[in-house]
């Protein structure tokens, strides 16, 4: 047993290796926590709206525990759907996997070790849904200590079964459906799948935006669906048991159901290990990344002589395009960001009224709004903020090749700028064809955005140069829990937020041309500063990184 624990310790260290945080990162975390407070408060308020709205209605029929059942069901389904990509990555595609396969340990031991990291994420998701629900329910229902204690116990046990179901599903797919002949392609699919999930959930939430309205409709709906709900819970057998464990008439009923939950969870864990022992190794072996191409035959039409900066930019673009996590984070996400904005606009008002607004509004304000939106989209693109970090162990190649560091940085900036155009193009379609913005405004917006994109890129590179993460073992770590992208977005929000607000409110800046001129001037100055500090930092730090 002791070697199992050693193995777990090493695996966790590997996974969280970046967690040896220095002071800079600690301030980053603090900052992040502070930024999350209003979001958390809003979420509690939102859940409270639903719970306190539904509770009295259900209480009439003495069905209020359905709230907990429903929350648990949603949690379970969310876990099953969202943890699949994490499980696939952790179980099958982690770069350190090969080194564990050679250790003299059993398949299930590696499996459990590989489970720990995604399981932590699962508990996070569970907490987001269950903590406010249980709290608000408890407050509304006037629950006592039995409720609190069994809520806590159940919280710990509940997520395990949905997680195991997802894992078993993944293992079956990997073993028999053989979707994973090619590691890279599967990774891309898993990534796109999780994005689609996020958007789907977003749509559902937005469809039911008004908590007041929603709660009464919903309560009626739930009352009608009483049977259906319990029926559904058969898919996730522990929903019923867990609900009973939290909310029963007598405390000994709680205890009995909790013990039952405990036993069932144990059975599932045993099942998981048994299946893992049988399926896991066969699934892992034989996964390879990279595609074998056709046999090379003719050299002369494969030779291209290019200027150094362009050759380097191409190298960057190819690496991004061919590395699954880079592709997902830098390009796919880039496509989804404008979609998000569309969804928000669509459900906030309907599209028709926005088009109407575009018609009536002063062109100055339309341009400003468009400019603000595109800044947000570009600012949330992590290509520039990962310019240095993406290199990882390979960073040293930049130091022995005879290329001027400035050229390298410019090439990286150019690559990020080109990728920015993917989202600019999507926004262009959105503005031109869906919102029917006048042509002149579009043209000016393109010019402004192209320039502001350079600012965003140099700012991102500046931030990454100051605190790159080069010692990753899995490409995903380049993007996970780093503060560089958030920091860049905030710098951008502050500097341009000020510019946009000022232009918006100053009465003497009127008309399209004067607005454009003001924005051009502001962006120009910002770009000059960003470029300057990025280049200064390059000079100072380039040779000392890595």
């Amino acid at each position: 047993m002791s070697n199992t624990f050693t193995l777990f310790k090493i695996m966790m260290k590997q996974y969280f290796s970046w967690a040896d945080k220095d002071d800079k990162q600690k301030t980053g975390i603090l900052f992040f926590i502070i930024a999350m407070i209003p979001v958390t408060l809003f979420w509690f308020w939102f859940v409270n709206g639903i719970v306190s709205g539904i509770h009295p209605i259900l209480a009439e029929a003495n069905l209020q525990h359905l709230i907990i059942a429903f929350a648990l069901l949603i949690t379970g389904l969310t876990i099953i759907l969202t943890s699949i990509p994490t499980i696939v990555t952790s179980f099958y595609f982690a770069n350190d996997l090969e080194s564990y396969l050679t250790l003299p340990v059993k398949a299930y031991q590696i499996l459990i070790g590989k489970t720990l990291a995604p399981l932590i994420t699962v508990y996070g998701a569970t907490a987001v849904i269950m903590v406010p629900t249980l709290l608000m329910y408890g407050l509304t229902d006037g629950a006592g200590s039995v409720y609190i204690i069994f809520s806590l116990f159940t919280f710990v046990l509940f997520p395990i079964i949905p997680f195991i179901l997802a894992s078993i599903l993944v293992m079956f797919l990997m073993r028999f459906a053989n979707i994973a002949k090619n590691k890279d392609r599967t990774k891309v699919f898993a990534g796109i799948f999780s994005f689609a999930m996020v958007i789907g959930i977003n749509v559902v939430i937005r469809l039911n935006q008004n908590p007041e309205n929603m709660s009464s409709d919903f309560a009626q709906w739930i009352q009608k669906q009483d049977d259906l709900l319990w029926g559904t819970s058969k898919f996730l057998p522990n929903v019923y048991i867990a609900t009973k464990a939290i909310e029963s008439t007598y405390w000994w009923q709680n205890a009995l159901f909790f013990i039952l939950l405990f036993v069932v969870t144990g059975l599932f864990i045993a099942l998981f290990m048994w299946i893992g022992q049988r399926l896991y190794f066969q699934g892992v072996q034989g996964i390879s990344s990279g595609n074998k191409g056709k046999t090379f035959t003719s050299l002369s039409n494969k030779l291209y002589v290019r200027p150094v900066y362009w050759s380097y930019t191409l190298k960057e673009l190819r690496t991004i395009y061919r590395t699954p996590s880079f592709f997902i984070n830098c390009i796919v996400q880039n496509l989804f960001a404008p979609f998000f904005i569309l969804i928000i606009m669509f459900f906030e008002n309907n599209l028709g009224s926005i088009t109407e607004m575009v018609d009536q509004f002063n062109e100055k304000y339309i341009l400003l709004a468009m400019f603000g939106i595109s800044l947000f989209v570009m600012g949330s693109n992590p290509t520039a903020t990962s310019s240095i970090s993406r290199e990882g162990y390979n960073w040293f190649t930049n130091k022995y090749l005879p290329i001027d560091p400035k050229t390298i940085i410019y090439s990286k900036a150019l690559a990020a700028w080109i990728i920015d155009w993917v989202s600019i193009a999507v926004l262009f379609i959105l503005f031109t064809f869906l919102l029917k913005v006048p042509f002149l405004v579009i043209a000016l917006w393109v010019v402004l955005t192209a320039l502001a994109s350079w600012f965003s890129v140099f700012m991102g590179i500046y931030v990454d140069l100051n605190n790159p993460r080069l010692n990753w073992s899995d490409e995903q770590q380049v993007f996970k829990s780093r503060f560089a992208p958030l920091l860049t977005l905030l710098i951008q929000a502050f500097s341009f937020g000020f510019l946009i607000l000022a232009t918006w409110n100053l009465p003497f800046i009127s008309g399209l041309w004067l607005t454009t001129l003001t924005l051009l001037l502001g962006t120009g100055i910002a770009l000059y500063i960003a470029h300057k500090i990025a280049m200064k930092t390059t000079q100072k730090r380039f040779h000392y990184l890595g």
Partner: protein
Amino acid sequence: MIEIQNVTKSYSGSKKAVDTLNLTIPDGKIFGFLGPNGAGKSTTIKMITGILPIDEGTITINGYDVTQNPIEAKKAFGYVPDHPDMFLRLKGIEYLNFIGDIYEVPKEVREEKIESLTKTFGIYEVLNDPIQTYSHGMRQKIIVTGVLLHEPDVWILDEPLTGLDPKSSYTLKEMMREHTRKGKTVFFSTHVLEVVEQLCDQVAIINNGVLEFNGDMSDMKAQFQTDGSLEQIFLELTNHE
């Protein structure tokens, strides 16, 4: 020619990985760099190539100081690192084009060299595959091809022969001889003493960051007054503490 003067380097700790090293690698000679694991060979090579900043001292390559004139110095050498796992997402041919662009190799030269080198090394057919799909030895070969593509005066190779099959190893050794015959420089680190005995014109042995010996094979035998093999001398030199 590489000149290393009073070079010292320590990683974060206080222990010096390389301690006041003085070494001249002359033109026209194959120079072997020996030492036990952790002796400081790779550290020295990384300072020569500009990968690691130098704490104290200076290094020049063909007269160019590596910190003052980095670009000129870097154009003068070609480097094969100890781990050849780089540019994995590029295809072989893309990597060679990239190197060709950086060192400004004309198209005709590229065509001729890539064809002959990769055919000699047996990696011509896989040039269209990502380097990720190459074996260790194939990765090494594509990097060696990249170095030879731009014909640098100075070759700096960190354990270039580990992982190569006998034929390719022989080819590379022949190429090293050919290169020094033209009056150019070859500096390489290795653990294989037989290779040193049959190939090197001059040898330096480093241990714990300190230079223990520098000279040719006859110097060595004279200094240690022995007819023993290089192996015995090496063990004696590096074991005595």
